[in-house]
């Protein structure tokens, strides 16, 4: 399960970012922010080759000693980043994909809310719940 989940706007500011454990929050902010480099790299390289039929899932952005960072980009260039603990070896690529899909669905619901102002921080409880379900449960 994820240790950090972030939603980043098209303009690269965070719409939503949550991590466990909370004391490492800053580190995750740095990690997610840095991962945007790779996201942009992947988007630009994919954009050239595939046209509009592109895969939203970007795969492993980069591994670090402790974490694996996965990326996903919606068609409107909103980025999802999931950080997984490296020691968590049970997670397969497919599971990461399905996590992203779930996240995307929930995000779409948030955007469909007429009272949500696109571009604002996500404060939806439903979205929060979905994210919590994907996060590592720490005691």
């Amino acid at each position, binding site marked *: 399960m994820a240790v950090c989940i972030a939603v980043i*706007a098209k*303009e*690269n*500011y*965070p719409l939503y970012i949550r991590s466990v454990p909370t004391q490492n*929050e*800053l580190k995750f*902010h*740095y990690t997610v*922010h*840095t991962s*945007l*480099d*790779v996201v*942009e*790299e992947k988007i630009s390289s994919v954009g050239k080759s595939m046209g509009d039929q592109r895969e939203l899932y970007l795969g492993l952005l*980069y*591994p*670090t*000693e402790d974490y694996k960072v996965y990326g996903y980009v919606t068609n409107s260039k909103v980025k999802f980043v999931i950080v997984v603990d*490296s*020691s968590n*070896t049970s997670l397969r690529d497919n599971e990461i994909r399905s996590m992203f899909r779930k996240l995307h669905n929930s995000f779409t619901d948030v955007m469909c809310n007429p009272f949500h102002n696109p*571009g604002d*921080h996500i404060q939806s409880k439903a979205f929060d719940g979905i994210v919590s379900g994907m996060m590592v449960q720490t005691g």
Partner: protein
Amino acid sequence: MEQQEEKPIIYTMENKPIVTCAGDQGLFTSLYTSLAQQLPREPMEWRRTYGRAPKMIHLEANFVQFKEELLPKEGNKALLTFPFLHIYWTDCCDTEVYKTSVREDMMRWQNSLRTHSSADWVIIVVETNDTKKKNKTNILPRSSIVDKIRSDFCNKQNDRCVVLSDPLKDSSRSQESWNSLLLKLRTLLLMSFTKNLGRFEDDMRTLREKRTQPGWSFCEYFMVQEELAFVFEMLQQFEDALVQYDELDALFTQYVLNFGAGDTANWLGSFCAPVRSWSGLLLRRPIDMEKRDGIQRGEASLLDLRSYLFSRQCTLLIFLQRPWEVTQRALELLHNCVQELRLLEVSVLEGALDCWVFLSCLEVLHRIEGCCDQAQLAANCSYTVGLWAYATDKLKSLGELCGLVLEKGPTSEDLNRTVDLLAGLGDERPETVNSLQSPYKKLKEALSSVEAFERHYLELSHAAMEMYRAIGRLRSARLVGKSLAEFHMRKGDPARAETFLQEALKSYVSEGWSLPVTHTRKQIAECQKLLGRTDDYLQTSALLAGDVNLTTEERKHFCQEILTFAGISGDQSQKVTLSMGVFTQLTQLQFHPATASVHSGAVLKVELTLRCLMPIPVNIQQLVASIHFDVDHGGTHGRSKGTQRQTNQGTIEFTQGNSSVGPHSYLGTGPALELDEIQDRSPSDNSLNSTGVVCKNTHLLMRRHDSNSPLATPNCVSPPTVAMKEGAQMLKVQDVTLKPGNNSIVFTAPSGQPGTYTLRQLCATIGEVQFVLPHIYPSVQYEVYSQEPQLTVEPLAEPLLAGLPQMVKFTLLTGHYTVKKGDALQLSNTDTMPILPSSTCTARTHSPAAELVGENILSIQSSEKVTSISLPPTPPYHTLEFQLEVLCIIPSGSDRPANERLTNGEVRHRPRSYSHPDTPMTAIDQRMSIDCPWSIYSTLLALTFYIPFKTKHSLLSAGNRKYVQVCVQNVSDVSFTLAEVKLTEKQHASLELQSLNTKSQQLLCSKHSVFCLWEVRWKEDLPLCLQCVFSANFSPFNQDISAFKPYHYQFQLERVTTLYSVRAEIVPPAGEQQCRSGLLCGLEVCITRLTEPAEGELAEESKTDTDGLKTTKLMYEVADSSSNWAVCGRSSGMVSMPMTANATHKVQIEVMPLFAGHLPFPKIKVLKYLPHTAAVAIQPDPDSCVENDSLSLLDKTLDDQADTASIRSRGSVHSVGSGDQQQKGVAMPRLEPFSPGQVFNHTHARQVLVLPATDDHIMEVNAT
């Protein structure tokens, strides 16, 4: 033949599949060179088992002399030493020799092969022409030897014996023979590979399947599978070889994962041993035998195994020309190893892994650098840069561990640790001993001294940053920069740190990452404090004090930093100026009064709402808003402009576009467009000249975005260059305390001079610190105006009705004028609109805010010419209101008195009535002239009254009797009561007008009419002209009698007397009792003169006949407008009437009724016929035209009867009817109608019964 069997097997690229050679060694030696050369020349297709794709393969072989020992013993798994093919060479062509020696030798060879169950063999028989020639006589045909061999050995395997002809000759036959031999050899070799490798793989799989059994060892299995990899490598099938290693890698990884999941394999124990050596990867040898031996012995550590595996993979990848994959895999490997060691809970000396990773990273980088060209390296920078960054990271943590980053240098404890770490590195490998830049040397050097460490660390960091930049990963580069900054900070070098921090901060701010912003800013604050850059430090502190990401304690600390500085009364005259946005935000500004527009001298309050971002209440010594003043040239006009602009009830909301960490601060397009519609109207008639849209905030939108404006980057190096404008007017409050959150501060705005005041800047002063808001945006303005006194009079109720007392409202805007005691308004009186005196006339005084401030009774004095109204004392810019009752007298008719002069000498304007387009009522404009105390000129005001009635009169006759009818129509919206209706004649006293009206009072409803009738009676002659006056009293309905007001209507009646009477009879046709339709009947017209000619009449239109009798000419005309009658024959004619009473003239006309029923009589008209001598030209009556038309219609119906007279008559009439200006001058005979009442027609409204024609049997009935 080489003596290779003596050497130990060295696992190098030189390995080739072994082929043994038996038989004639000399023969083989002679052929060896060309054989070894030609064998690999052409590729063979290798078909594989298990559905693996076939491959083209170039075969090489290592030919060795056959020895019994070379044959593998049972159970020997070695593949590299395995002889894949056995060849027996012979050039024997002598049967005898064959039988005696060669055959036996072959048998021995075959037997030894068979005992080792090796079936891969071939016998080569070499034939040369020389040998053939030599032994031509005593030998069998050469085929027989081959046949013999085949029959002796190749049991049904004829292909196992090959003939090579003339190998050393350069002939086509020889070449052909070579080719077939090579093909055979290749085929056989491949067959052998397929068979033997297949068998080996099967064995290997069997072994792998046993891995769950207790005694299974990974290391053993490793050796087996690696043997296969070696063979593939030997066959140059690097891909397949790599697959073997990858499989081993995966298998091992799976075991480690299973271990983590609790499934422990015994053999893993050896890998869990504490790590004693961390010498890093070694990639320079194709095979690291040292480690391989370790693995073989089962003594390798996890790092050893991984290192060895990776070095093999690396070698193969380089063979495959995919060096970048090495870097990619290397990073994964390093991460993975660290994880695996954790998972297996292997005890590692602290820092040892860092050493290992650092060395490994550098080793990989060096290795790759050696085998890639620069372009390739650059293209795969994204992989290598990860290694650089990883190495940098590890070196940093090593430095921290060994106390190399501290300012004071390592402690003895640190030194001990360093020694331990260095011990684990072992000795430098022989491969790199001579290299100056080996990873080993680097690490050793870096750990040896603080200076060396710094050098190496900076070098690595910069390299990593450069690379990140080169591939566009700026964020990563900045992160490296940040960690470099942290290093500089530790080393006590804040100046260098700050550059990196600022750069990182800029990126975080621009992308709205608040947590990194806060963290970085905190580091910057530390830097700035150390550097003693007070301005910047205070600015950053202010930002941090207002940062919600920090704890309250931290925020308080930074806030206290500012306050502490502010408290120090510095000698420096220069105060520290900071941007206000970080300290407090202006959220709202409110004007009281809300219009933001006051007259000069009035009180205007400005209320600011400041959201203080500080965590604690802050006492501000002075808060100043500077004002820009513009003299308003528009006079009072400016007021309306000002109120128009200030919408939203005088409240201006400020959106926080410059909040320092908000996600939207830098994003999007900046401030939104603020557009305003402008309309340029012509000053004279207010018509639209042009219209358009203006952008009010172009100065914000058009600004260059890269400029380091102080507002945009609150943390920039240079202090915000904001200064208060000197000498400007200011709003000022002293000593206010701003609490955290919203604060309301009220200023009293200066309002001395009229003009526009714009709030420009805001400045809060705390001791030595000033917080300045350089621009207040959106711009805030208020207006101070000065106004001339203004007097308006307007009706209390629309419309003002003439003839009735009406209330009008006087409104006096005092403007800048103060109404003193004794000031009065002088109204010039007029007759047509007297001002009605009233006892209680109250004046109300309103303040500018529309509050009632006073009520006074007005004293009104009226003299003959002037009405004077004394005003109560009123302060400036107040409104004075009072009401007066006025009456506009309805003008009764045509009488117009001569112009009078008013008291002030002006010509009195006669009220002139006119019809108004909006109402049926006739309007009258009444002008008033008022002298005001503030001006030497009179004020002229106009009021419009409306006459509620329209009156018409008519004269009615009955023979000689005369009646006057007056119709009063109420055109107003009010109902009236009409009373005392009266008609009087002014000149003739003898005349009696007898009223036929019964009611004394009558209701006259809105839009209704009342008719009144009088009979005119006279004693003597009836005068020619009557001057009548109709008068009545009226009052609005439901009001008492005292409210009745008179209404007069004058009119004149002329030519009242009846001159002629016209009688007519219709005579039925002869023999008929009644008229019948379609039958001609006679119309007898009798015109009788009733009176003696009056004097005027004689002069005007009579003429003396030859017989002395005065006659006048009349024209009669019979017309029927409703087509009931057809006039046959003459329809009109002229009669000459004697001007004496009772003179009669009779005319007979034939008419025919066209319908049956009671038909009205045809109309008989009598007109005056004026001969051409008549001087007076009278405008033709349009009515005559109409009659003319009916005449022609009459003619048309009788088309068939040509009547020249009728036509003639028509022509004459026509000439009269259409008589135009040109004809006027020419003396033509004319027709002139009589005035109503002069001719009385007895047939008017008479009817005659007409029976239907006798033959009309069919009656048409139309029922609708």
